[in-house]
């Protein structure tokens, strides 16, 4: 029977896993609809008038992004943080009840965004589209998560605090003020006036990425790596380097009307960001040394490793975008679409896939339903995303070069995109089928009756 709140250890974490997998289908479907509209605009034209407004590109685009980053990815983060905490502190979770409240309120927020955004209720700022009541829910949720993190750490029986937990503590602590400032939480309109609105928006966009998706995400990867490879982390100190996020937000808007000094500052800091990211990559590859063969057998580890390689590429691209000359060519083009999917899908979501497989196995005591489905999931998603991203990068370079001739009519540069939009649709559809394999695998494991092994939701350490 489904109860509102369960006090069983690990139950909130498991619910977050299931909800994440459920929400993952939504941005997948929305993404395919959007890609279809760009490839074949006639499909959008032919929709009946009753549904047309709600399926309009400009309304579905923020719904796609918000449900992907908050409905899917963030919920895996919640699940994994609640899963990892008792194991690394050798202590029960501070409050399973708070964790369940967290689950209900977070899913209320995600459902609210999926209803409000297609209705055109939006604040219209990147990653900050959610309307005011949902903004308040976001902050409340991160505070509740922080209560559980800090409360569990305070009661820990393991004196040493593993690097992942440092990352979780730092992430929750800075995400709240970043979200509050970025969304102008004290004002229901949620927007600042004039140029400052955009400066704050990109402070928020990049720092939400730094503080939440990267700081917490790297913490998750540094937990998974020793766990799945069976080898201790190469260096704990190197891991800590990743804690220090930087102020790189304005590199999203080079050559913009914002002050030049701010752009130069952000360029310097973006280049400095190469230090912690290199530290992470060194740590990752040194830990994996002599364990690479395990990735052939273990699909979860393979997702982790592939995600880390894509993460390295994300960082290389990120630093290169912060140079004005390169930005001038690729900014505003489809290159950026490739880059954002490289970060959110091919890196962080790949880690999230690995985490979900691990957590469902440990929390239910049942292994994934089918090894073959896992392989399909891996290969369809990896190859599909490669086709998606490469087509967008090529498209972006062509677009940028076409624009900088200053002689080709703009409409012609749009028509040139058609084959690349087609390739993106194909790659996206492959990744979408991969995601369905994943969801089906998790659903079957959840529904299974006989535990394969004893459940391991005791706080038995790593």
């Amino acid at each position, binding site marked *: 029977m489904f109860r509102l709140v369960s006090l069983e250890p690990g139950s909130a974490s498991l619910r977050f896993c299931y909800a994440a997998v459920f929400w993952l289908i939504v941005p997948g479907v929305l993404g395919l609809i959007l890609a279809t*509209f760009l490839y074949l*605009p006639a499909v*959008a*034209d032919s929709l009946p*008038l009753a549904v*047309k407004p709600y399926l*309009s*590109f*400009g*309304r579905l*685009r*923020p719904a796609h992004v918000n449900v992907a980053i908050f409905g899917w990815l963030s919920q895996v983060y919640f699940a994994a943080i609640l899963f990892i905490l008792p194991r690394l502190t050798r202590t029960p979770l501070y409050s399973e009840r708070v964790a369940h409240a967290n689950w209900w309120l977070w899913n209320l927020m995600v459902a609210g965004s999926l209803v409000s955004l297609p209705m*055109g*209720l*939006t604040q*219209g700022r990147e990653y900050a589209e959610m309307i005011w009541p949902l903004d308040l829910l976001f902050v409340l949720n991160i505070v509740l998560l922080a209560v559980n993190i800090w409360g569990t750490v305070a009661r820990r029986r393991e004196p040493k605090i593993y690097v992942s937990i*440092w990352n979780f503590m*730092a992430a929750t*602590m*800075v995400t709240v*003020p*970043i979200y509050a400032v970025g969304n102008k939480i004290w004002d229901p309109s949620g*927007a600042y006036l*004039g*140029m*400052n*609105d*955009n*400066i*704050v*928006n990109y402070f928020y966009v990049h720092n939400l990425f730094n503080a939440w998706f990267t700081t917490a995400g790297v913490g998750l990867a540094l937990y998974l790596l020793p766990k799945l490879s069976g080898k201790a982390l190469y260096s704990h100190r190197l891991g800590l380097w990743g*804690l*220090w996020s930087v*102020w790189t*937000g*304005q590199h999203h*808007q080079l*050559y*913009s*009307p*914002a002050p030049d000094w701010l752009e130069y*500052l952000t360029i310097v800091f973006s280049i400095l960001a190469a230090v912690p990211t290199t530290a992470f990559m060194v740590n990752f590859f040194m830990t994996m040394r002599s364990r690479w063969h395990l990735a052939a057998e273990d699909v979860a580890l393979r997702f982790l490793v592939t995600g880390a390689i894509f993460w390295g590429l994300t960082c290389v691209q990120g630093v290169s975008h912060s140079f004005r000359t390169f930005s*001038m060519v690729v*900014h*505003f*083009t*489809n290159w*950026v*679409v490739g880059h954002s999917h490289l970060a959110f899908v091919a890196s962080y979501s790949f880690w999230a896939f690995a985490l979900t497989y691990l957590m469902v196995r440990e929390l239910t005591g049942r292994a994934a339903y089918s090894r073959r489905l896992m392989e399909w999931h891996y290969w369809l998603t990896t190859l599909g995303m490669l086709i998606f991203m490469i087509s967008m990068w090529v498209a972006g370079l062509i677009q940028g070069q076409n*624009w900088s*001739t*200053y*002689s080709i*009519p*703009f*409409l*012609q*540069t*749009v*028509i040139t995109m058609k084959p690349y939009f087609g390739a993106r649709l194909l790659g996206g559809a492959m990744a979408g089928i991969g995601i369905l394999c994943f969801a089906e695998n998790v659903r079957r494991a959840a529904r299974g009756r006989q535990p394969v092994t004893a459940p391991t939701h005791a706080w038995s350490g790593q």
Partner: protein
Amino acid sequence: MKPNLVYLIGGSLISLLLGIIVTIIIPAQDPAGPSASAQPYSEEESRGRDIYLREGCHYCHTQQVREPEAGRGMVHQRGDIGPESVPGDFYHQSPVFWGTLRQGMDLAHVASRPGIGDNAGWHELHFRNPRAVSPGTVMPSYDYLSADEIQSLTAYILTLR
């Protein structure tokens, strides 16, 4: 350095606070007044701007001309993307629609393009059926908007001079 809670809390908060001061508060001290192209919006133009926001036009259209491309044409004819955007252009705007992607063209100075951009009739036709006037465009048709809404949206677009 041995990590402890003081370093973690202090370091994170100082880094965040400095970030807010240097990258948000100090830039906001710049007293740029409105530029020549920034006019307060009429009631109808404001309504149109709200429709632009609601329909998410800014996901495919930027309103931001960068210095190297300023005054150089890539839309219809030479020079027609218009002058470089300056802070004062956005004086009356909240939120701003700088945008991140150009699936469609930049609209910062769209209403300065003679014959098309400054022609209300062209815009109304284009909103209802983009492919009738721009063959090959991927813009969705906004035929679900009411006549009033199309008129307000057009009034807003014509402020982008």
